[in-house]
């Protein structure tokens, strides 16, 4: 039962975040590329304001898997690095915390481009 509630919260949180994005796409002229940029920036800001933390505590991967969670990781990594390294942590923390994802996207992207054929549009 506990596991069902956990997955339910994940589904709900992730679903709501994506719904907000969908409403913005449908109701405004914001393109999906801008939505990604907007959400990552919002994730950083909400992390700074202490708002994303409780959302993450509630929704776990429902909050960390959307791109706003990437922004939250950037901010959380910065705070952690400041605690460990002081001033220089402002610059090293964010990218360090998200390095795995960035490197994975580059490598898998490169490999995929070697094997996949472009589709004719």
């Amino acid at each position, binding site marked *: 039962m506990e596991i069902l509630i956990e997955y339910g919260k994940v589904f709900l949180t992730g679903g709501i975040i994506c719904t907000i994005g969908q409403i913005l*796409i449908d109701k405004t002229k914001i393109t999906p590329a801008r939505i990604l940029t907007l959400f990552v920036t919002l994730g950083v800001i909400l992390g700074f304001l202490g708002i994303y933390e409780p959302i993450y505590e509630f929704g776990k991967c429902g909050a960390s898997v959307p791109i706003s969670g990437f922004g939250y990781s950037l901010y959380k990594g910065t705070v952690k690095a400041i605690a460990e390294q002081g001033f220089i942590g402002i610059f090293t923390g964010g990218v360090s915390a998200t390095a795995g994802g960035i490197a994975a996207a580059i490598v898998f992207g490169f490999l995929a481009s070697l094997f996949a054929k472009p589709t004719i549009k």
Partner: protein
Amino acid sequence: MNTNLNISNSEYNDLISKKAEKSPILKNIFFAFVIGGLICMLGQFIFNQMLNLNIDNEKASIITSISLIFIGAFLTAINVYSRLGKIAGAGSTIPITGFSNSVVSPAIEFKSEGYVLGIGANMFKIAGPVLVYGITTSVILGFIYYIFNYIF
């Protein structure tokens, strides 16, 4: 097909607006919600499996991101993610798999323009701005955090 291409811009626009379906907002929202939620649940499943293997939270969440990025890249390469995107909209754009798609998709598309100026230069066409604004915001807010917590 008997298509006459010698038409004016306004005629063309009329034609397009007639052909284009009205975006059914409620349907879009439903699919964005469900598919976005399901992708997050898949992430939680991977995350929980890592915790079961006694991997700590921080590493488990990195492994989850990398796994989802791999899945996004793979589905993009076999041309499934773009089809999913037509139904899911933001439900497939906003999860980290969508970030992966935004890197992989232009990499494949611009392959014909070469390895450096094609794949290399276009890979971050969409993901680039995400990193620019994400990292810039985190450095600025990190600086403010530093000032308030370590100087005052």
